[in-house]
């Protein structure tokens, strides 16, 4: 195991009678992008805010950069950077002022000019925070998380409420940080975000981690097979098709044959051979790999965005 920079063990947090976090355990390695994926109210934000030192856990052990967020909050805050979920800045604070103000709080700094440039906010440097668009505010939030060149970054729902184009801009920023080997802990309820950005993902539901691994591992580990969906010139029998090599099951839906494939390349080769012998023709073919959404449905019986 490479160096882990953050550990969480049996974390528990209640709000009154509501159990938001129920025994969460995971660790994050240096330089990895770690995702907490789950529906709203799953306990992702509570977990992250405990790691940031904003909330006290009821029980469990937490260590971030070797520090306990409750016992040494002062030291910890120099080592972390965060883009919080529900936050704001004073309306009449200018973009550059915000960056300079926040970087003045830290021992280590990054050049605010460089951050401004990198996050595409140069033209907005003298704009008031209140005049920025949602995407600009979020870019500023990410830039501000970097002012102290932190060891660990926390991004809580970084693309929530943004339109798809802005969301892709944020993905590019995170991918760039990933190339710089920054350690990032992010929460999300968007499947594609977790699949695209995260090295490892913990799927959280009802305050518990129900699966943990790289997106690929999670998909492989799940019972879901790759689906090959084909349309044929002449009808065929699903019972015949499911006996082809590499195919485990087949059903027909409105003229489309859905083949469950253990080994997709083999399934396709045997299907093509079969059709040649039958004198049949392939009209269309689509290969669908299982997504994290399928994994989530399999584990919880619900869709993620219910």
């Amino acid at each position, binding site marked *: 195991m490479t160096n882990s920079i953050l550990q969480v063990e049996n974390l528990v947090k209640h709000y009154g009678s509501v159990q938001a976090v129920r025994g969460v355990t995971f660790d994050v390695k240096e330089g990895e992008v770690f995702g907490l994926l789950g529906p709203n109210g799953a306990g992702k934000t509570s977990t992250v805010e405990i790691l940031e*030192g*904003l909330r006290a856990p009821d029980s469990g052990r937490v260590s971030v950069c070797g520090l306990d967020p409750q016992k040494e909050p002062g030291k910890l805050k120099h080592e972390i950077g965060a883009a*919080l979920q*529900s936050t*704001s800045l*004073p309306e009449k604070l200018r973009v550059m002022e915000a960056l300079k*103000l926040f970087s003045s*709080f*830290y021992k280590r700094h990054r050049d605010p000019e460089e951050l401004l440039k990198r996050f595409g906010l140069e033209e907005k440097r003298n704009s008031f925070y209140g005049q920025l668009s949602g995407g600009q505010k979020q870019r500023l939030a990410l830039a501000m998380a970097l002012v102290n060149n932190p060891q660990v970054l926390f991004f809580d729902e970084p693309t929530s409420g943004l339109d798809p184009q802005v969301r892709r801009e944020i993905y590019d920023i995170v991918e760039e940080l990933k190339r710089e080997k920054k350690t990032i802990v992010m929460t999300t309820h968007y499947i594609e975000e977790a699949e695209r950005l995260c090295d490892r993902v913990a799927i959280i539901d009802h305050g518990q981690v129900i699966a943990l691994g790289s997106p690929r591992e999670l998909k492989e580990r799940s019972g879901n097979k790759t689906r090959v969906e084909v349309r044929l010139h002449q009808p065929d029998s699903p019972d015949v098709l499911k006996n082809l090599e590499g195919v485990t099951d087949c059903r027909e839906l409105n003229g489309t044959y859905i083949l469950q494939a253990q080994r997709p390349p083999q399934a396709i080769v045997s299907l093509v051979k079969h059709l040649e012998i039958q004198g049949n023709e392939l009209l269309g073919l689509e290969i669908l790999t299982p997504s994290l959404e399928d994994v989530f449905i399999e584990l919880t019986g619900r869709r993620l965005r219910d």
Partner: protein
Amino acid sequence: MTNFLTLTRMRIQLTLRNKMFLFFSVIMPFGFFFLYAGVFAKGNPVGVRYLLGPIVALTVMGSFWGLSAALVMFREQGILRRFHVTPVTSSDMLASSVVANFVLTLPTIIVEFFFAAALFHVRQFGNLPTTFVLIAFGTMSFASLGLVVASVTNTMQETQVINQLIWLPLIFLSGATIPLAGLPHVVQRVGLFLPATYLVTELQDAIYQSAAIWSRDVLIALASLILWASLTFFLSAQLFRWEPESKIPRRAKLLVAATALPFILLGIWENSSSRTLAKAQAMSDSVNAPATPADRSK
């Protein structure tokens, strides 16, 4: 320490960009000034000098409104939580409110003195060091009172309601609007429990009667204001909340009532000695008396 200074600068900048500030810190105090000096004192230099105490006291007490209530807004909008993930402490946040307030209030007071000299021909301003020290600690104590209100209220609306409830007795029962000597006896006795009363009377004592900083009455007023400010500041640091949804425990509201203790004790003592009332009466008599040779020579 540097965090506190940069925060103070930010608070000053933001306040200057706020139109509400213009009203509460510029228009309202000067409105009072011209009403008192021009109408109540009829432009008479002796009368203006006598009323400068209440005018300055009103400006000083106005600190109670501004920046501390802004903290409630910062909390409600989730701005404070952003500062909470940085090394900024609650004391940095609170102290920057108090100091920013002082920096923003001082120029208004200086202009009031300037107007008194230039427009109403007041030549004597009494003991300026005493006046300055009273202004400094007065601003800090009333700003701390605002902070404690901010710390026990959950919404901006709630803060404004409580502020009004505190503000009205402070200005009407202390001699800041109606001279203490002119108030009914029962009201005077209640006024003796208010910090505002001592601020008004001692500012008047300093400006109108040139009271020295080490005179007994000034020292009593300063000591009470400083003790009170320390209690309210300490308590607001203890009760400080970064999160919009965190609620204040009921027991804490009782603790807040305990900060009134210095002035309750002073009030009890004053009610039995009538020291302050006698002084207010004497000052009022002297300004209303036919001009003495000493006055004519000014």
